[in-house]
């Protein structure tokens, strides 16, 4: 819904919009533990007609139907993964907001780790490239005088060598 709305800000077209989403009291399960499970599962299921919104956030009628189905399966004794499989068997991977880990999503799931490793290698190489010794070359007489001047200036500042 939010995508629709923000897109509408800039595109002209707005899908029929129904604000105030989420679960309705009449759908809820009596058992609070089961209901809590249903809520958590609903958050990971995509409302197919409202693009990028979970069925927990949407009151599109399909989202409502799916919420009811999720609760129906829970009541029938399904485990969480069985419920998810039930919905996925009917609507495909697209319905899962958390994509399954499978060959086609390896790049997605392991990408961030790869970025971090590559980044660290890059930073290490960058640091290595620079000589570890930071012994400065000897100062010339003129430089020494400037340093003294600068230090005098810094002293009345915050006392650190931050310019």
């Amino acid at each position: 819904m939010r995508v629709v709305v923000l897109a509408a800000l800039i595109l002209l077209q707005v899908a029929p919009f129904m604000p105030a989403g989420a679960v309705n009291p009449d759908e809820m399960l009596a058992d609070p533990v089961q209901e809590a499970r249903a809520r958590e599962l609903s958050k990971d299921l995509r409302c197919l007609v409202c693009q990028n919104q979970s069925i927990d956030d949407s009151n599109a009628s399909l989202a409502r139907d799916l919420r009811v189905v999720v609760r129906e399966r829970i009541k029938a004794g399904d485990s969480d993964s069985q419920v998810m499989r039930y919905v996925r068997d009917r609507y495909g991977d697209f319905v899962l907001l958390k994509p399954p880990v499978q060959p086609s999503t390896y790049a997605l799931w392991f990408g961030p780790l790869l970025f971090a490793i590559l980044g660290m290698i890059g930073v290490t190489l960058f640091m290595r490239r620079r000589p570890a010794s930071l012994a400065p070359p000897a100062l010339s007489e003129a430089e020494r005088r400037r340093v003294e001047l600068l230090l005098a200036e810094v002293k009345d500042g915050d006392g650190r060598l931050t310019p």
Partner: protein
Amino acid sequence: MITEIGHLALILALVVAILQSSLPLYGAAQNRAALMQFARHAAIGQLGLVLLAFLATTYAFVVSDFSVMLVANNSHSAKPMLYKITGVWANHEGSLLLWILILAVFGAMVAGFGRNLPPTLRARVLAVQAMIAVGFIAFTLFSSNPFTRLWPPPIDGKGLNPLLQDPGLAFHPPFLYFGYVGFSITFSFAIAALIEGRVDPAWARWVRPWTLWAWCGLTFGIALGSWWAYYELGWGGFWFWDPVENASFMPWLAGTALLHSAIVVEKRDALKSWTILLAIVAFSLSLIGTFLVRSGVLTSVHAFATDPARGVFILVLLVIAIGGSFALYAVRAPTLKGGGLFQPISREGALVLNNLGLTVALATVFLGTMYPLFLDAMGSGKVSVGPPFFNSSFVPIMVPVLVAMAIGPQLAWKRGDLAGALGRLWAAFGAAAGIAMGGMLLTGGGDILAVLGLAVVGFVLMGVAIEWAERVRLFQAPLAESWRRARAIPRAAYGMSIAHSGIALVMLAIIATTVWRTEVIQVMRAGEQVNVAGYEFAFEGVRDLNGPNYQAQRGTFQVARNGRFVATLEAEKRFFPVENQATTEAAIHTTWFADLYAVVGDPDGSGGWTVRLYHNPMVPWIWIGAVVMVMGGLVSLTDRRHRVGAPATRRRRAIDHGMPQAAGD
């Protein structure tokens, strides 16, 4: 008539922009002062013309001239005046016009305030700015003309999506564009520097204020958007990781990294080619964001929203702008010689770590946002990448960045003393450990991640405080001495401390509200009461009333705590007949430490109403924290070294004293 004047002005602006993008470049290459000088006049003239075009469109909206197609499609005579005006940019064509206007404003600011830039650099910067303007004005005129007439004019307009008739969203785009377009200046500086083959601390000093401005605008714009979602969408969510949000968040991450790496260039003459790359990337991501939102690649609302012609046009612009600058980068960046050396444990080292973290986070968000598209384009199936992915990947990446945020400022430049820094931070470690243990006890070890998150927040906040206390030698020197030191600390340093505290506040609020929020959804009848996190909500029922262009049903709750009155909450459902759409207006009462949030849903047909009541702890601090961040940026901008176009060092200022700063004129 006025519309035609606006149209003409935009056409002239295109002509001016074409001249401005070419002549000064030639002038800079040939060292022809007059041609370089032309860039300044052109930039100011362009602002005048674009402003005229923008005002003409605004006028059409204000007087509801439905013979203008844009007005007929997006406005209505019964709309309140505020939304007639903000309606100008609440649509594709008008928002482009706003984009171009802000671009022109920034260009004119460089022309006006950049007086002590070297003339060749200024000419090149303005020329690059003009190239961007040419692209966008051409796009507007040829594929999204806001001045198109409609004959015969309809009796009345189609109205504006009521969700956009809201102050939060009305002012969200201008700030967002301010940020996006602000990065165009850093981009232009980067390209100009590549053309000149020269990046030095002075360059970084010119660039930093612009980056800061853009960053402040973007931060505020994103915060406004998130705030709007929170109060308008009716279930208290504030961030959804959807592509449109990510499109604005990615430039923010790049801009934040740029802000930090430019410091290293300025202070230490290092990380030059990396900073240039970030400047290009930040603006490229702004452009890509524009592409994503407008082309329908990711967010199409069925086929009619998608206009492939527009998408192809923007894609061509992207390829020219981004591809061109990366090509230039590939050729010229290797010639930029790195300067200052430093050890891994140093202020620079911490800033590099910051950049590493932000870049990895940026790459992750990019990957998650684009992945469905990539997979689909390869024919490997359709997947959705939603909040579960982003939460589980983005958050761990940001933790080291936050920790570095507290330690980095303690380290000296070039070669830092990590043990000493950590030693000074003992109180921060203490605070973190205290929060962690207290949290474990209070929650019974339930939400370990949340408690650890809060510990990091405490560490950062204490770290910021310690850094300041160390600087002023609080309690180590006489108070008068500390006071004198406190006043001597540069504003930029204060800006940093404030902005870092802002981040910590945002984190704190997000953790608290995500983990400890209370929700009650049930059917209530008038006279019934329900307890939400210790607050008694008494429902008084629903009555009908009429707004200026909508009909509303208003539900009233009296909220009390321990028998004492707290607030009256009036939540509304509004129906807009012109647009045939409904909105919810959540009723929110903030205690500063939490929001009480009430929404009225549908009637059950027998006198009851579905109500959704929430207690959202700390949630206001998400936006207060964001405002604190912006304030940090603004404070930093008042630092004399950050004044736009004030590159002269103190010493040079002293020498130049009394002379008009007209180096380039």
